[in-house]
């Protein structure tokens, strides 16, 4: 397998709704910015991987077909990846494999979503229809007819975790303090959807209930319209591009993925409801591939669909003990970016978690959210000279899809 590096990345502004652009233009904007970042033209790109979660959002089956020519990928191979919330991660994994295998020297991985054109005729608002569109990810026989939604699916998991580990994710103040830190991160991200908001722990704890007792309105990710692109290249090509662009290479040092069974149950290969085993297995594979351990990593961009799930995921990724994930706050492991200069690495033993603001403050355009995370992780590693970072993605019913990618700043740039 060949070494693979990230040589460019670009994202659009994250918005609740883009009136000024369809997903055609959003994907083009992200591609254009990634090319500008790497100082290359599309002629140098061998192939493309698209991350698009849901045809219903895009209002077109085979949505990638109309993009091909518009983003300069005519007459090149193109693969669309769709894996629920983990679509972005799996698209990047596909792109990395394509370079690592020697099939391509430079691959564009671009993902995004146009989600909030959906509209519910009865409530006269978008949200119930957006939720319904996501709920179509559940099967039509057993789950969808019961009224499954993404929120209650993830909360089933969180409540099952709380059954096993009471007093951890169940403390509303701990969750609210995490939201406060994420808000400060979002304030520093010029593309974040909620970059101008100020949210205090107090506001979190009095915001409207979505699902009691684990989910208030200010603990939930957003629906975002936007797109993100990442350029992956072989070692030789990456060095050549890096020389030209002046941008340090960020290497993909290890990547791991795992999907659990759709059905929860007891024993065998059934999904354990009180754990996110997909996150655990994916990260163990990524650590093994990279030859590093959680304590080597100082920046994490993880898929925070909900704050309680962020805490469980941090446990599964090995950064804090499962059952005592509240140490993120209790022991001050999750550093507030306000306490750091923009070029300062987190102090030893501390972690920058979702410096982009995550999916809660930054943005969640499903098919490209993990590219958004990668864009941010690379940006922070480069600015702060942090040698190792991690990007995580999760998705599907009960968070059964999981992936983790360990990134390493090129040592010449790290010095």
């Amino acid at each position, binding site marked *: 397998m060949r070494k693979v590096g990230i040589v460019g990345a670009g994202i659009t502004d994250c*918005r609740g709704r883009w*009136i*000024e652009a369809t997903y055609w233009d959003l994907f083009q904007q992200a591609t254009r910015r990634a090319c500008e970042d790497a100082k290359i033209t599309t002629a140098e790109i061998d192939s493309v991987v698209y991350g698009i979660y849901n045809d*219903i959002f895009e*209002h077109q089956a085979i949505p990638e077909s109309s993009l091909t020519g518009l983003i300069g990928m005519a007459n090149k191979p193109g693969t669309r990846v769709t894996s629920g919330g983990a679509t972005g991660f799996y698209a990047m994994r596909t792109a990395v494999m394509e370079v690592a295998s020697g099939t391509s020297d430079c691959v564009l991985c671009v993902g995004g979503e146009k989600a909030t*054109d959906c*509209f*519910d*005729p*009865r*409530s006269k608002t978008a*949200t*119930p*229809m957006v*939720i*319904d569109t*996501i*709920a179509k990810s559940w099967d*039509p*026989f*057993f*789950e969808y*007819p*019961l*009224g*499954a*939604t993404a*929120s*209650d699916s993830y*909360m*089933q998991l969180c*409540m*099952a975790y*709380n*059954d096993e580990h009471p007093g951890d994710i169940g403390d509303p103040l701990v969750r609210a303090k995490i939201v406060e830190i994420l808000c400060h991160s979002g304030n520093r991200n010029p593309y974040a959807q909620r970059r101008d908001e100020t949210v205090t722990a107090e506001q979190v704890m009095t915001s*409207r*209930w*979505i*699902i*009691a*007792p*684990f989910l208030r309105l200010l603990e939930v990710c957003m629906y975002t319209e936007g797109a993100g692109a990442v350029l992956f290249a072989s070692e030789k090509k990456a060095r050549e591009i890096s020389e030209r662009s002046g941008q340090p290479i960020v290497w993909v040092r290890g990547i791991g993925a795992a999907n659990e069974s759709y*059905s*929860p*149950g*007891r*024993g*065998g*290969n*059934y999904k354990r*409801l*009180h754990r996110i085993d997909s996150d655990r297995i994916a990260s163990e594979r990524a650590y093994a591939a990279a030859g590093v351990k959680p304590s080597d990593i100082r920046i994490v961009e993880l898929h925070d669909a909900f704050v309680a799930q962020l805490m469980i995921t941090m446990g599964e990724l090995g950064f804090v003990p499962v059952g005592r994930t509240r140490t993120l706050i209790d022991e001050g492991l999750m550093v507030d970016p306000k306490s750091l200069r923009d070029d300062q690495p987190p102090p030893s033993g501390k972690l920058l978690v979702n410096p982009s603001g995550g999916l809660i403050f930054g943005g969640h355009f499903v098919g490209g959210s993990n590219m958004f995370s990668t864009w941010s992780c690379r940006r922070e590693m480069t600015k702060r000279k942090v040698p190792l970072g991690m990007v995580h993605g999760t998705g599907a019913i009960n968070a059964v899809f999981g992936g983790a990618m360990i990134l390493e700043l090129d040592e010449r740039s790290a010095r």
Partner: protein
Amino acid sequence: MTTRRGQPALPLDFNLPRDWREIQGRDGRTYLQFTTHMVTFYEQTYGEHSRFFMALRGGRLIGSKCTTCAQVMVPAATWHCPNCNFAEMREVELPHRGILAHTAPVTVFPSASFIGDAPFARGYVDVATDAPIASYLPSRLRTTTGLERPGIFVKGIELKLVFEDERVGSIRDIFWVPMTEIPPPLRNKQPLLASELNFASPVPPEVKKDPAKAAAKDRAMAAMRKLASDVERSRRAQADLANRAFVLGIKTGGGDFALDVANSRLLIREGLPDKSDFILVADDPDVFRAWVNDGSLTDAAVEGSLWLPNKEAFQVLPALDRLPRSTRRDLREAK
């Protein structure tokens, strides 16, 4: 999802008039949007799942059991064991009782197709408890004690399987009720039908009158009377209440009162009314003071501090929840 046989698969009001409209972007320029849809109709085949749903129609619950490892899948999602090199799985009759595998969430803000059904609870039930390995059944969870709320469906409780009287072959043909709510003579009945249980008139929970809470009730009454008088001067609040008429009898630990909505006005009265549309119960009267101070009755119902008999009662809350904000905005603008 309340569609039954013969009703349109897509409700008739689930539609938009054709429209092309100008809309302003953030950049100040004018853009266009149009209304459209992406609807597909299906004659959805059940295939290998047919046996499971045919069994439900017949008042039975079945799973598939592996002839090699003895694991049980419920629902019978496959007839070839994925863990045993696709060994044959055979039909097994399952008991009409199970254990709730985890504490279950209550959904309050449903997707577009389920608006009107909320709040509702769903969770995973361990049915094949004798099997060494088993999947859980995704299930509707219902209570005969009023609206579904936190604290009822907690991990490990025993549940009784209940069948709808009229069954079509849908996962909604069945639901589960806490065994403690099932009258003992019915606990072993198979199938137990929904009509054999009383969901229509749940008994309100007892509240112990506590003199210490009387002062809280007085404060709540004063706050609500102020709100009612503000409604008299607020166009927005009157619009919130337009075309609504209902009487709520409210029992609290500090004493009872009535909340009357008619003619776009709100009236607060001492004591329980002779006739009411719904009886609500809150041990702590402060629930109502918090509501007036920009809190929310919906939130109180969601977290379980306000008891409601049914979904119809839940649906009157959003209009009441809008009143504090509407009156504040109108009165501020009037200043």
